[in-house]
């Protein structure tokens, strides 16, 4: 006859069993997540397109970079047909003329430099592109990630 203590031991064995299932399931889920979620990063492409668009805009339009910063921002975003709100949320634009930053925040260039070194694989940091056009140094960056929404 089985004692009550022995029956208790048998019931307790369910915990290691469930734990084992959780470990197996977690391992499979983690493997699949790593496999499917990586490798489709669009930040560099975004930064390149934004940079190209700004170069194109500066080449074809004449923008007065010697005016007040607020006025310059307004003119720049209107003339270049870029949505200021979206840029503020997820992008970086720094335009320097003769090494003097005229548009954007200087510290954003530091963030860009960081993202190329220590924070290279950090998805929360922007990926940036810097180009030179005549007297201008144009730095653009993107930290945009696809957003999942419940419908």
């Amino acid at each position, binding site marked *: *006859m*089985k004692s009550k203590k022995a*029956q208790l031991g*048998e*019931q307790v064995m*369910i915990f290691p*069993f*469930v734990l084992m*299932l959780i470990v197996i*399931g977690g391992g*499979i*889920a983690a493997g*699949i997540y790593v496999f*499917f979620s990586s490798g*489709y990063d*669009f930040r560099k*492409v*975004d930064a390149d*397109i*934004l940079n*190209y*668009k700004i170069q194109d805009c500066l080449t074809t339009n004449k923008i007065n970079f010697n005016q007040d910063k607020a006025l310059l921002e307004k003119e720049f*975003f209107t003339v270049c*047909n*870029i*949505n200021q*709100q*979206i*840029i503020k*949320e*997820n*992008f970086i634009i720094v335009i320097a003329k003769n090494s003097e930053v005229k548009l954007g925040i200087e510290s954003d260039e530091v963030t860009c430099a960081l993202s190329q070194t220590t924070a290279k694989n950090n998805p929360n940091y922007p990926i940036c592109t810097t180009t030179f056009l005549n007297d201008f140094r144009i730095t653009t960056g993107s930290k*945009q990630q*696809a*957003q*999942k*929404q*419940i*419908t």
Partner: protein
Amino acid sequence: MNISLKIKNKKAAENVISSTVIYLLIAMVFFAGMMLFLWNQMNGASVWERYYSEEITKLINIAKPGDQITIDIQKATQIAKKNNVQTFSEIFSFDNSQNKVCVKLSPGKKTCYSYFNDVIILSPDIKLIPENNILTFTISEPKK
């Protein structure tokens, strides 16, 4: 004596069977859940949602007002159909107020991506052509 031994053996057998059944049930539920999860992942809905939303955003960012864009969405419609998305018009949505492109390839969720080009999207339309479904839309200047 003999009868009581039989009864004890029967009880022990019942105990063994019931605990085995419980273990089997838990294992079955676990493997069913895993299979469902794997099936959903292999179907690749979330990967394709990201792919389409980001590629369409790229097209919009480099487009100019007046451009008409046509893209092949055969793969997207196949996945949406497999995942029982109610209507194809639900798959692609454009939010002109927030400059967003959203793609929905499975019920209950969608993936969105923002475009910085200050334009609006007009008359998005899905044309169902055998072997080559397409999405067309027109880029226009925003209403000031």
